[in-house]
C-alpha cells in the first residue's frame, strides 16, 4: 500500500511526457477508442473505416518548420483504389532557407514549457507568484507593507501629490461611495486635490441605530489627518457646522457646533444620524495639509426606513486664497452657470464685480405652482440650456395693482438681479471690458392706444435672451457672450367684479442664441521679399 501511494504521488508530481514522434502524433484523434471521421492518423480506425473517408482533415504532421531538416508524417487517401485506402508516408522535410535552424543546444527552444505542478512544497511560492491582483477591501492591509511599494526617496514623500490618498492615523480618509452597486463602501480613500461628491445607500435599522458606526459623527472625525504622508504631524478634523434635517426635509443650522451629537433612539426614531458630510481641507502650495473641517447634516430615521441615502463631499482649498468657480476657460462650457455681477458705484474704477452671491437665476417651478407661495425658489441659468419656467397667479378682486406688480417683479427677477454678465467663462472682476451689461426692455402686451395711461400694468413674463458667438480658432472655438437682453412683458390688470377669481400664467424663460458668423479660414500671407537697393548703389555713375 505504501508503494502504491508513493507511485501515485510520483505520478501526480510529474506531468505526462510530451509526444515528439510525428508518426504517433494525431491532433484529430479526439474520441478515445473510437474512430474519428476523416482523421487519417487515428490509430483506432481500421481499413474499413478508411474506405469510408472522403478526405484527410490532417494531411501533414511536422515538427517546428524552422528546422533545416525534420521528419514529417504525410497522410493521404488513395481514392483510385477500390476500396479507398489510406497512405501513410514518413518523409524528410527540408527547409531551403539559409536561416533555418541547423542545431540547437537549448532543449526548450522548440517546445512549449511544461507547467509546474503544485505540490505542498512549492504551493506557497506559486501562490505568491501567480495569485496576486486581488483587491482587498480591508483598510488595514493598506498600511501594513510600506516596503512593498516603490521605496520612495526621503524628499518625495514629504508632501502630498495630486491623487495620493489622504492618510490618517489608522489608514486613510474615507469618503464612502458606491462601488459596483449603490451600497456604500467605506474603503474609498479621498484623493488629495480631487474634489469629489458621492451619494450612496446604507442599510439601517432603528433598533441598531447607535451601534452602526457609519451613522455616528465620531466615525468621520475621530482619526486625525497626517499633514504630510508618513509623518507624525496630525491635523484634527474640526466640526465646522451641523445642520439638522427633520423628517419632512426642513433643515436647520445649529448655532453651536461644539457638542458632538451621537445617534440615539428617541420615540421610535433614530435621531442624530449622519445623512451627509462635507469635508473642507485647506492645504499649502507645497502639498501639506494644514486644516480640515467637516460640515454635517444630521437627520432622523423612522422605524419603517430600511436604508438611507448618505451624501459625501470633499473639497480642497489652498490657504489664503478664495476659490472662484470658473464657468469655462476661456469660453463658456455648456452646462456651467452664467457668471454675473454688479458694478459698485464709483467712478473712475476700481470696479470690482461682486459676483460671489449674485447669479443669473430664473424662477424655479414648484409643485404648488402658486406664484405667491413660491418661497423664492430659483434655479441658476446654465450656459447653453434654454429653460422655461412659470407659475400661476390667482387674481382676486381685492388685490391692489402696485404691490402686486412689485411682488410679481420680485418673483420674476429674484432678489438681486445682476447688471452685468461675464462674456467669458473666466472673466476676472478687474477686467471691466470683459463684462457685458444686461439690457432691460419693457414691453406692453397690448397696444397703448386704446388704454389709459393710468391703468395698471403688471409684469407677466420675463424673457432673457443671451446672444453668444464663437470666438477664437477654427478648430477650438470658444463661446463668448455678446449681448444679454431681459425683456419684461406687462399686461393690463382689469378690475375684477368682487367674488370672482382669475388665474393668469406667469412665465420666465432663458434662450441662448448663437449669432456667430460663419468662420472664414484665413491663411498667412505669402512672405514677400523686400529688397531695396541702397540709394548710393550706383555711386560713381549717379
Amino acid at each position, binding site marked *: 500500500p505504501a508503494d502504491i501511494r508513493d507511485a501515485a504521488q510520483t505520478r501526480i508530481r510529474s506531468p505526462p511526457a510530451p509526444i515528439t514522434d510525428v508518426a504517433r502524433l494525431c491532433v484529430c484523434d479526439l474520441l478515445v477508442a473510437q474512430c474519428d471521421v476523416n482523421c487519417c492518423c487515428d490509430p483506432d480506425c481500421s481499413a474499413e473505416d478508411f474506405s469510408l473517408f472522403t478526405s484527410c482533415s490532417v494531411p501533414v504532421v511536422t515538427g517546428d518548420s*524552422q528546422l533545416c531538416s525534420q521528419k514529417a508524417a504525410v497522410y493521404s487517401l488513395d481514392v483510385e483504389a477500390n476500396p479507398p485506402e489510406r497512405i501513410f508516408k514518413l518523409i524528410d522535410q527540408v527547409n531551403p*532557407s*539559409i*536561416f533555418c*535552424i*541547423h542545431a*540547437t*543546444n*537549448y532543449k526548450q*527552444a522548440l517546445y512549449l514549457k511544461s507547467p509546474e505542478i503544485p505540490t505542498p512544497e512549492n504551493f506557497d511560492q506559486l501562490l505568491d507568484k501567480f495569485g496576486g491582483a486581488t483587491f482587498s477591501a480591508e483598510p488595514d492591509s493598506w498600511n501594513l507593507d510600506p516596503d512593498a511599494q516603490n521605496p520612495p526617496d526621503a524628499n518625495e514623500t514629504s508632501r502630498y501629490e495630486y491623487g495620493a490618498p489622504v492618510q490618517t492615523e489608522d489608514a486613510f480618509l474615507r469618503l464612502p461611495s458606491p462601488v459596483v452597486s449603490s451600497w456604500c463602501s467605506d474603503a474609498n480613500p479621498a484623493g488629495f486635490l480631487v474634489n469629489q461628491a458621492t451619494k450612496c445607500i446604507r442599510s439601517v435599522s432603528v433598533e441598531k441605530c447607535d451601534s452602526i458606526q457609519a451613522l455616528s459623527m465620531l466615525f468621520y472625525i475621530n482619526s486625525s489627518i497626517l499633514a504630510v504622508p508618513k509623518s507624525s504631524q496630525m491635523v484634527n478634523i474640526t466640526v465646522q457646522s451641523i445642520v439638522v434635517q427633520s423628517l419632512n426635509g426642513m433643515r436647520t443650522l445649529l448655532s453651536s457646533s461644539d457638542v458632538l451629537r451621537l445617534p440615539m433612539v428617541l420615540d421610535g426614531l433614530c435621531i442624530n444620524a449622519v445623512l451627509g458630510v462635507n469635508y473642507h481641507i485647506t492645504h499649502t502650495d507645497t502639498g501639506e495639509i494644514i486644516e480640515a473641517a467637516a460640515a454635517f447634516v444630521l437627520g432622523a430615521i423612522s422605524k419603517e426606513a430600511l436604508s438611507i441615502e448618505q451624501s459625501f463631499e470633499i473639497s480642497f482649498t489652498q490657504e489664503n486664497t478664495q476659490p472662484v468657480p470658473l464657468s469655462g476657460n476661456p469660453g463658456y462650457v455648456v452646462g456651467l452657470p452664467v457668471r454675473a455681477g454688479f458694478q459698485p458705484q464709483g467712478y473712475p474704477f476700481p470696479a470690482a464685480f461682486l459676483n460671489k452671491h449674485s447669479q443669473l437665476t430664473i424662477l424655479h417651478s414648484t409643485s404648488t405652482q402658486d406664484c405667491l407661495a413660491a418661497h423664492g425658489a430659483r434655479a441658476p441659468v446654465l450656459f447653453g440650456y434654454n429653460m422655461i419656467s412659470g407659475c400661476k397667479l390667482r387674481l382676486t378682486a381685492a388685490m391692489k395693482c402696485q404691490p402686486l406688480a412689485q411682488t410679481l417683479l420680485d418673483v420674476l427677477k429674484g432678489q438681486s438681479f445682476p447688471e452685468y454678465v461675464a462674456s467669458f467663462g473666466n472673466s476676472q472682476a478687474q477686467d471691466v471690458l470683459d463684462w457685458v451689461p444686461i439690457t432691460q426692455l419693457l414691453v406692453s402686451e397690448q397696444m397703448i392706444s386704446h388704454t389709459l395711461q393710468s391703468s395698471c400694468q403688471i409684469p407677466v413674463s420675463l424673457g432673457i435672451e443671451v446672444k453668444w458667438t464663437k470666438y477664437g480658432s477654427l478648430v477650438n472655438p470658444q463661446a463668448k457672450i455678446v449681448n444679454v437682453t431681459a425683456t419684461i412683458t406687462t399686461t393690463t390688470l382689469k378690475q375684477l367684479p368682487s367674488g370672482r377669481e382669475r388665474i393668469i400664467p406667469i412665465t420666465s424663460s432663458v434662450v441662448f442664441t448663437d449669432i456667430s458668423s460663419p468662420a472664414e479660414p484665413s491663411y498667412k500671407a505669402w512672405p514677400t521679399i523686400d529688397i531695396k537697393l541702397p540709394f548710393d548703389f550706383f555711386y560713381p555713375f549717379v
Partner: protein
Amino acid sequence: LSSLPLQILLYVNGIYYIFYFLATLAMIIYKSQVFSYPDDLLAPDLAVLFLMAVLEVPRSYLGFKGNLTEAEAPLGLSLGLTVGSVVLCVYLLLWQTYVLWADVLLNALLLSAYGLESGLKVTAIAAFVS
C-alpha cells in the same frame, strides 16, 4: 624571404573577419527577436563573439609584423592566438544556442581560413628559423 601567400591570406582573412563579425552579430540579434532566447544563454554567445573580435586584432597585427620583418617570435605568438580563435570559432559552430545554416557556413569558412593560415605560418617560421 617573407611568404607572399601568407601575406595575401592574412590580408583576405582580415577583411573576411570583419564581414564575419558583423554577420554573426546581426544573426544573433535576429535570433533573439524571432526565437526564445533567454538572457542567460544570450550572454555567453555574445561574450564569445566579442572575445574573438578582441583576439583577432593582435593576432592579425602580429601575423603581419612577423611575416614582413621575417621574425619568428611574433609569428609564433600569432599562431598561439590563432589556436584560441579556433577554439572560440568551434564553440560558435557547435555549442551556440541556435546554430543556423548560415552560421555553419560562416564558421566553417573561417575555420578553414584559420587552418590554412596556421599551416602557412608554420612553414614561414620554419623558413625564418633556418
